[in-house]
């Protein structure tokens, strides 16, 4: 091979190398462009989803506002009775405070509805016999003092003495463990 042919051969190799290098750089740039476009799409989609989630959140907040306000108001009353003993103690306090004549009392823990928010309750079976006004005031006092309570049965008859009434009550007090 003559010298000039060798030189041309070297130049051709250099040209090929440069073209190859530039092409590689172009490919890398295109790859970077594609990745950027992909990430841009992902970012825009994520932003749209975030906006959607925000709208859904506001809608949910507005839709449940009344419920949640009521819940916030009532929660402390339910939170007072974490165990059946708490509820039993409160009933005993209300009886003691009002000084009604208690004939009998029986307590049991009962499952109200399985899996429900309020699943268990203390059920108090109370029999009271005392003055008409005093007994009905006491009944009101039970419902006032334990706002979360539910009187599931209330039976009133005449009492043994003049103005007395005989009251049989079945009171449910929901027990919400923490």
């Amino acid at each position, binding site marked *: 091979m003559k*010298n*000039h042919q060798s030189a*041309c051969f070297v*130049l*051709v190799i*250099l*040209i090929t190398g*440069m073209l190859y*290098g*530039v092409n590689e*750089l*172009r490919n*890398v*740039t295109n790859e*970077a*462009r594609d*990745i*950027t476009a992909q*990430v*841009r799409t*992902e*970012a825009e989609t*994520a932003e749209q*989803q*975030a906006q959607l*989630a*925000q709208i*859904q*959140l506001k809608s*949910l*907040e507005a839709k*449940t506002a009344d*419920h*949640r306000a*009521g*819940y916030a108001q*009532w*929660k402390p009353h*339910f939170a007072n009775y974490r165990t059946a003993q708490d509820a039993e103690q409160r009933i005993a306090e209300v009886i003691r405070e009002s000084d009604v004549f208690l004939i009998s009392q029986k307590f049991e823990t009962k499952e109200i509805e399985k899996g*429900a*928010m*309020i699943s268990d309750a203390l059920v108090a079976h109370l029999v009271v016999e005392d003055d*008409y006004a005093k007994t*009905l005031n006491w*009944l*009101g006092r039970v*419902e*006032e003092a334990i706002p*979360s*309570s*539910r*009187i*599931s*049965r*209330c*039976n*009133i*008859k*005449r009492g043994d003495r003049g103005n007395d009434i005989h009251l049989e009550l079945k009171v449910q007090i*929901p027990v919400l463990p923490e």
Partner: protein
Amino acid sequence: MDNLIHDLKTERQNISEGLPSAYKLVPVTFYVVSVATVFLSLFFYLSKKAYQSTEDSMRERLTQAQTQQSGFTAQQNAISQESMKAEGIAKWLEGSRPLQPVTVAIGRSMGKDSTVAELSLDRNPEIPAHTLMQLKIDGGGSQQIENTLNAIYALDYQTYSAQQVKGRNSTDFQATLIYADR
């Protein structure tokens, strides 16, 4: 073309023949490609840097948006859970309206000649908001029942499935009481 091709050479005596004319394109191409390579490399390098910079800012936006979204989703879950609890409590309270006002209203509705012999209020175990009222009144008759029902209606209760049985000197009445939220 000769000057262009030989401009990098120092002056010397030719020891070989000149480049054939077809071969002269090779150094020309080399120069053109060299210059183009410099410019294109610079262009692609800057473009790549710009893309990488954009990608970084997009990734930042993506992370920020995902963080926001997960925050909103967590808040939604918290609200949904709270709402479910609220519904449970509302359902309980719906069936826990105080009964004492009903007993008092019934007692106060009694006329001169009437007395409550027995009053029973039982909540329906399936639907606690429905209360079965069984009332036995001594004396008074239908008028007394009417007065008692008016007293109950004044408390925003409605009566359903009412039944009345008259005895010799007493009246048995029973009905389901449902609170009408007005």
